[in-house]
Each structure stands twice: as structure tokens, then as C-alpha cells.
């Protein structure tokens, strides 16, 4: 298989972009990545997005591609719920590895805050099973809450242990100029925040976000050794059910586990070798499950480990120096691309927030309650 390299990245701030349209948001991130890659015209454009239907716009590759002068190139959108950014990277990787293209631009973009929150909450549940879950009014927070209560009971873990994750993420996010939530918080702030779906409180949850990120992928042929290009050495993606009920064990995120195994095997990297990781903490419980499924912790051990200082800056691996979905924010279809861009910047040494000295990095982006996951392993 041909090698795939990251020649440039770009991102907008995560947050509320009232006066910036979807096409402008995607365009800004895209043009930054193109500029970093030496202003070469990409041959293909892959868009990651989940919910532009809420603002009545599909066909985003055409919309955003044409907006930035890419008329005539190849392109399309890919979607895997909140894991859309990850599958966009998987697609971009394969378009280059196949030999079809040498230069592919991957753009994740989401603009949720144009719509009222209750519409967005309903939209996010399109990741779940419309006929068997959404019909009962369960929200995405509610589905994660079912898993969280089960996990706490099974492993004997207190709410406060899990909630501590949020404190850590706000601390990291406070130093990331692209993050949506840049205030430090205390455990008491989390515990006192309103319940949104028991036992999940507001501060256990990522915010609703607008944002766009882009990565410019190139083949070996175009690799420019001077620029410390970062190599994608492993990539894996896997599906689990949309519904929670048919899973044999509620806290085993099969897609997360299988995608991580595939990516690590392909990269010939052991999980202990990872220096830095950006993982998918849509809720504090998601952080625990993702960390355990990747293999950074044994089952039921992650919260105690982060309470003991593990995964924080200085530890190996450092997890979510960006602040994660919790503090950087979660512009749904863009999140997987933000993660990749952040880890690339860590490997290059130019991430503008918490810096992690790193040779090997990992990203994991999850759609639904673990129903679609993509893991990427990168080396400098």
C-alpha cells in the first residue's frame, strides 16, 4: 500500500459562528490546510458532516469545493454520525493509497447552532435507531446515561470519579486557543451542574458546537522531507449496532476496540508506544469506555487512573491535550478531523496549547454510542 502523509492542517475556533455560513466555515479551514501544504490544488475533496440536513443543505462537497475554487475536482461527503470526521479521513486515506489521487483534502464541518437546541438534540439522535429508540424520546445524552449507570454499577465506580474527567479537560482546554470552553472548573462545579439525563449532568457533556477542520493528505510521491511531514501508519474503522439493546455487553465498545486493534496492527505499534492521543469524550463516560477499549486501561479502571493523575500532561500517553470534545467542543462531523489536525501539530511540535513531546500519536473518533469508530495511528 502507498504511504499517506499529512502535508497541512487547518481549523477554525470551535464555538458559535453566527455570522459565518457553513460554506465559509468549511472554506476557512480548507484554505488554511491548502496554504500549509504549499498552496497546491487538491485533486479530490472529502467532506465529513452529519447534520447539514438540519439547515436544508446537502451536496456539501460541491458547495464548499466550488466556494474555494475547486470546480472540476472529485469529491463527496461521508457520514458516520458523530464519527463522520474519522470516516472522512479513512476515505481520504484510501483515495490516496489506491493510487487514484496524490493530493486529497479532507474537511470536517458542522454548523449546529443555527437551529434551536431542542431541534439539534433531536437531530443528534439520528445517530440512534429512529424506529426503536428515538420513537421513545430518548436523547443521545439519555443513551449514554444508560451506559454510564450500567458501568458504574458493574465496576463499583462513583459518579465523582468519572466526573473528574471534566475538570482535567477544562484545564487542558483553557490553554487551547481553538477551544470552545476555556474556563477552568472544579469537581464541585460538575457535581452541582444540572442533570440532563441522570446520572449525566450538563458538565459531563460536551457543548453544542460549530466548527471546521481540514487535513491535506498526500502520497509518498509528494512527501516533502523538509517539512517534518507526519505519516499515517495505521488506520482502522469498525461498525457496531445503532441500537444498544442487541449488544451482548453494554460497556464493551466493540467498534472502538476493533478499530483500535486494526489500526495498531497495521501500524505495527503497541498501545504502550503511544505518546499522545485525542479520543472521543462526548460524555465523561465515553472517555472511560474509549480509553479502555483502545487498551490504555483495563476494563473498569480508567476513571481511577485519571483520578490518580494518569493521562494528564506529563504522562504517557497524554490523552486529549486539546481539552477533548468536553472542552475543545464537538462540531460533530468535524471532530475527527480536529483530532487528526491536533495530533499532527503535536508531532510537529507546533500545537498552540498543551504541548506533548511525541513521536507516535493516536486519534479515535466515535459515531453513535460506539456504533461507528475510526482509529488512526500517526508517526513523525
Amino acid at each position, binding site marked *: 500500500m502507498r504511504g499517506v502523509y499529512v502535508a497541512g492542517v487547518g481549523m477554525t475556533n470551535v464555538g458559535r459562528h453566527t455570522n459565518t455560513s457553513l460554506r465559509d466555515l468549511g472554506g476557512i479551514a480548507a484554505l488554511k490546510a491548502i496554504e500549509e501544504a504549499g498552496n497546491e490544488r487538491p485533486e479530490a475533496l472529502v467532506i465529513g458532516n452529519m447534520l447539514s440536513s438540519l439547515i436544508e443543505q446537502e451536496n456539501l462537497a460541491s458547495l464548499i469545493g466550488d466556494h474555494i475554487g475547486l470546480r472540476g475536482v472529485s469529491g463527496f461527503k461521508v457520514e458516520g454520525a458523530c464519527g463522520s470526521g474519522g470516516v472522512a479521513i479513512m476515505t481520504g486515506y484510501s483515495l490516496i493509497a489506491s493510487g487514484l489521487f496524490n493530493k486529497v483534502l479532507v474537511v470536517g464541518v458542522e454548523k449546529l447552532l443555527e437551529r434551536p437546541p*431542542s431541534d439539534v*438534540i*433531536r437531530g443528534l439522535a439520528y445517530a440512534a435507531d429512529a424506529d426503536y429508540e428515538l*420513537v421513545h*424520546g430518548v436523547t443521545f445524552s439519555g443513551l449514554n446515561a444508560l451506559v454510564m*449507570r450500567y458501568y458504574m454499577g458493574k465496576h463499583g465506580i462513583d459518579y465523582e470519579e468519572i466526573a473528574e474527567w471534566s475538570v482535567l479537560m477544562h484545564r487542558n482546554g483553557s490553554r487551547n486557543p481553538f477551544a470552545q470552553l476555556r474556563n477552568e472548573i472544579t469537581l464541585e462545579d460538575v457535581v452541582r451542574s444540572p442533570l*440532563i*439525563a441522570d446520572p449525566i449532568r450538563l458538565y459531563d457533556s460536551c457543548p453544542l458546537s460549530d466548527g471546521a477542520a481540514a487535513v491535506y493528505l498526500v502520497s509518498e510521491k509528494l512527501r516533502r522531507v523538509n517539512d517534518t511531514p507526519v505519516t499515517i501508519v495505521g488506520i482502522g474503522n469498525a461498525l457496531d449496532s445503532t441500537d444498544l439493546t442487541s449488544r451482548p455487553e453494554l460497556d464493551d465498545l466493540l467498534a472502538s476496540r476493533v478499530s483500535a486493534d486494526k489500526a495498531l496492527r497495521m501500524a505495527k505499534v503497541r498501545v504502550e508506544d503511544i505518546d499522545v492521543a485525542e479520543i472521543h469524550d462526548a460524555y465523561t463516560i465515553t472517555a472511560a469506555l474509549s480509553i479502555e477499549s483502545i487498551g490504555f486501561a483495563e476494563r473498569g479502571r480508567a476513571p481511577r487512573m485519571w483520578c490518580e493523575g494518569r493521562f494528564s500532561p506529563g504522562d504517557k500517553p497524554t490523552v486529549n491535550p486539546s481539552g477533548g470534545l468536553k472542552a475543545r467542543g464537538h462540531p460533530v462531523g468535524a471532530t475527527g478531523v480536529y483530532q487528526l489536525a491536533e495530533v499532527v501539530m503535536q508531532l510537529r511540535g507546533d500545537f498552540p496549547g498543551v504541548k506533548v513531546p511525541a513521536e507516535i500519536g493516536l486519534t479515535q473518533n466515535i459515531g453513535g454510542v460506539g456504533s461507528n469508530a475510526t482509529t488512526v495511528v500517526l508517526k513523525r
Partner: protein
Amino acid sequence: MKNVLLNISASKCLRCGYTVYPPKMRCIRCGSGEIVYVNLPREGEVLSYTVVRAPAKGFEEFTPLIIALIRLGEARILSEVVEVNPEEMKVGMKVVATIRRTARTIDGGLPYVVKFKPLESGSEVGSNQPDSFPS
């Protein structure tokens, strides 16, 4: 009519026996296409639950909304639990299926769905259920 609506149909694999809800065309454990549909029992046990307090659009009148993951025989189902206060919910609680209306569909339809209530429910609590199924 009520009895028909109360049938909860799961798929069971004839090769490995794995039984799942919602029903699938192929077995998710062994991949076999030899699948039969079986009715699940109407009584079950709460495995986990939540109380949705930030509702999706359309479910405002049902909020706070109790959602539970319920073991029904060999399978599990996700549904609403009614006729109980949030603070009375417990893992391990026994519940039984009933038919109630849920929120209007995007096209204004008024669907009736299977919900659950405590198996030996005492007096009906002040309920957020605007309508029960005509029996």
C-alpha cells in the same frame, strides 16, 4: 387489538440461539440467516435507566422522561417507564409492558407504542402521560 400491539417480536438464531431486539435479518453473533421471530415475555427487569430532562423537540410534554433498558426473557428492550416517579426507579425493578401513545411524528401522526409500568404498581402517581390506550 391491545394484545396484538403488545407482541414484542425479537429475532432468534436457529443455529446459535442468540435472541435480539430489534429483530435482525441475520444473526449478529454467528452470521446465520436461519432466523425465526419469537415473542418476548411482557414482564421484565430494569437493567439500567435514565431520566431525560433536556428533551428532544416534540417530547416536551413527556419530560421528565424515564427511559430504561429492560431485560425481557432472552433479549433486552429500550423503552419508557410510566406510572412511577423518577426517584422510585431502581435497577432490578420488575416491569410489565403496556400500550401508550407517544409524541406526534414529524407528519402529525399519533403513534401508540409499547411502554412499561411497574409490575405491581400501586396507585397511579401524578403522571405525565396525557393519554392511555382505550382498552
